[in-house]
């Protein structure tokens, strides 16, 4: 059983290392990840929104609904801790 597990791990590891060669280099401007959407955001954030910080523009405006969900997650965590730990008295 242990030999089979070792073989499976070796097989997957060899495949992973084999495919690492095909990944783009770190910070490569020709990589597909930096080719389309990032350039679009950099070009259109200031005319669209009018603030200098692209990170905030993406976080609060382009991805506003996602950020609302994150705030709701934090709120839910706080309410859960309150309901679990606070004994006696009301909210």
């Amino acid at each position, binding site marked *: 059983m242990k030999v089979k597990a070792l073989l499976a791990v070796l097989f997957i590891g060899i495949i992973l290392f084999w495919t690492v060669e095909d990944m783009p280099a770190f910070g490569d401007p020709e990589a597909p990840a930096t080719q389309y959407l990032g350039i679009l955001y950099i070009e259109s954030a200031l005319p*669209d*929104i*009018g*603030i*200098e*910080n692209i*990170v*905030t*523009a993406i*976080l*609060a*405006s382009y991805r*506003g*609904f996602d*950020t*609302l969900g*994150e*705030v*709701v997650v*934090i*709120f839910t*965590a*706080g*309410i859960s*801790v*309150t309901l679990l*730990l*606070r*004994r*006696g*008295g009301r*909210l």
Partner: protein
Amino acid sequence: MRENVVIRTVSRLAVPFIQVFALYVIVHGALGAGGGFQGGVVFASSFILMIVAFGLNSVRKRLSNKWIVVYSVLGITIYAGIGLLCLFMGGNYLEYGVIEAILGIPHLHGYLLDAVEIGIGITVMAVMTSILCDMADKGGESS
């Protein structure tokens, strides 16, 4: 808690500066590094310093349990309310550009982002303080 003059004096001096820095981080979110999440956590850290230095009850006097819950709901209400405002103005949910186009005020989009960041900051501040207050409470020590 044991009396310690150094800790109390340094905390009393540091807390206002931490809070001003937190407000700066929240409001500075549109221009540089910063934002609601970070600023809220920094603001909550001032309350945590007060809990460490002066005990739980002194914080409870300034920020009671009821107001913590009110603040944490208020932040989400600001955020979701601005989204609903965009809906009523005829756009999509959280489409701030519609309000700027209808009211005709320049840079209103950025100001709405600031308001949203303030809402995030209020919620994060209240939730972090609430979690630490609940964990520091020994049960029945304060209402």
